[in-house]
């Protein structure tokens, strides 16, 4: 089943065609990566899908329903949640509260009287997610004291706490150490395999992309240059020319 679909999606900033006539589908349970050189429109495409920007033209469908002009919080409530390229966490709150507040968004937001800490199901859900990211031991630490890699995990945890059906990850391994990258790759794979999440990934680290993607889309200057399996993409001459650099024998 086609989960997410864009039809002739465009976003222009003045004369700049950041995203230009992009048609693209994601199937349920798929892990799809978007690659491309800097300025290719990857993050803009993400911002369109997550509702941060509204498109200049074109349409977006999620599970057959049009979601083109919905705002970011509405998109999140529909089941699409994103992480940001530059890590967005709640720096002065505890690690636990970072995830808890996000989990709470599915239950209640304008309850002024009940004690937030007494929402047992939310607390339980939060602990489960923290355990998944090996952050359970640091649950009472202030989030700003975490290492860069841990903050990146935490943000994925925050996104996951909303219980999304489709997860948009914007460069989740950027700035991570090689060891952290390996763990993150494993984690993302688990999100698809064990939690059955559909994932769209923007990533520059080709080793990560090639290892875990079901399908790869290469963007260039706002347009789709190529789309296919990781092997097809790494052998595609156009992609090699604009992005991967150098030739690889296939």
């Amino acid at each position, binding site marked *: 089943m086609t989960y997410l679909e864009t039809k002739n999606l465009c976003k222009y900033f003045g004369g700049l065609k950041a995203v230009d006539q992009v048609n693209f589908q994601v199937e349920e349970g798929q892990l799809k990566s978007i690659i491309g050189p800097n300025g290719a429109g990857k993050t803009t495409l993400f911002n369109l899908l997550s509702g941060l920007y509204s498109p200049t033209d074109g349409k977006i469908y999620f599970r057959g329903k049009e979601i083109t002009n919905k705002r970011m919080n509405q998109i999140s409530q529909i089941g699409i949640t994103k992480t940001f390229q530059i890590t967005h966490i709640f720096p002065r709150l505890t690690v636990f509260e970072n995830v808890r507040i996000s989990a709470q968004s599915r239950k209640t*937001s*304008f309850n002024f009287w009940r004690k937030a800490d007494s929402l047992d199901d939310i607390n339980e859900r939060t602990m489960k997610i923290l355990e998944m990211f090996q952050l359970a031991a640091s649950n009472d630490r202030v989030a700003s004291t975490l290492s860069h890699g841990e903050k990146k995990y935490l943000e994925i945890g925050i996104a996951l706490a909303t219980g999304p059906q489709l997860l948009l990850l914007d460069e989740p391994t950027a700035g991570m150490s090689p060891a952290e990258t390996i763990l993150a790759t494993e984690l993302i794979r688990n999100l698809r395999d064990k939690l059955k999440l559909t994932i769209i990934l923007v990533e520059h680290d080709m080793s990560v992309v090639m290892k875990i993607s079901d399908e790869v889309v290469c963007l260039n200057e706002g347009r789709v240059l190529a789309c296919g399996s990781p092997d097809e993409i790494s052998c595609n001459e156009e992609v090699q020319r604009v992005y991967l650099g150098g030739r690889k024998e296939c």
Partner: protein
Amino acid sequence: MKVDKTDTLRTKTSHRVVWITLLVFLIAPHIISTPLMTEIMIFGLFALGFNLLLGQTGILSFGHAAYFGLGCYGCGMSIRYFGLSVWGGLVFSMVLGTLLAAIVGALAIKKRGVYFAMISMAVAQMFYFMALSPFKKWTGGEDGLKFIPKLSLSFPFQVDLQSPFPLYYFVYAIMGVSILCIWRILNSPFGRLLQAIRENEQRTIASGYNVTMAKFISLLFSGLFSALAGGLFCVYLGYGPLSALFWLTSGTILMMTILGGMHTFIGPVVGVAVFLYAQNKLSWVLREWELVVGILFMTLILIFPEGIVGTIKSKYAARKAAVQEVGEAD
């Protein structure tokens, strides 16, 4: 499953802070001058209301004198012209404060940072000048609102609000209930949402919250409690001073809040207490108190960069962490 232990711990300490504060205010008028303590409570409530917006939601309003002053005049005028009781006057001020917050919110809540601050300040100045001249007939202009009938309570029992002690405990009761309400709001799911907005608005939206609505409601609560404080100020003074609406009041409440620590629950009240106490004592000694206040403020902020309560709290937390680390190393 066990609830995160430090989180409940933190909530408990915060809860304890509320009770300690109430206890201190219960005894204090017997030690320190009663009128001064009354004033500290009123401005303390104002600062708590103000800090709902500044410290908890991360929105700077530079026009909170509008809510305070509107509450003050609203209470006084409704008693003088409509013959309302003191209770009626206070309820009237809360309604006015909330209404004004709704109007300001509808106009400006989507504006960020300094733009919101400027719009709120403009609104406050508008009220100031309205009270100063066009509505002079009703507001008393620069003399302030006078000729409010002698204030007393007949419900739930007869209290004469002219003498300091009964007045003090009347204000105490209202402030006590308000402080408990504010504490409760801040620890509710909604209160936690406000914190999240303060910490990272984008992330909060991306997690599916309607942030604009949350900020709007935060402003309503802030307006409500600030106006209630204003109403109490009128009951305390027995008249409505024009200075309650002046922009300096907005500045002072901001200064007091930062001085006490805007990222803590009780900090604003401590800031108010220190400020008003110093003002009271120093103006006995020095006639040019305003000269000293700047220096005093700078000195205190240099010693307590996160405000008095904020800095003490983080120093304490750092020490506790250090002790724990040593313990673990052993």
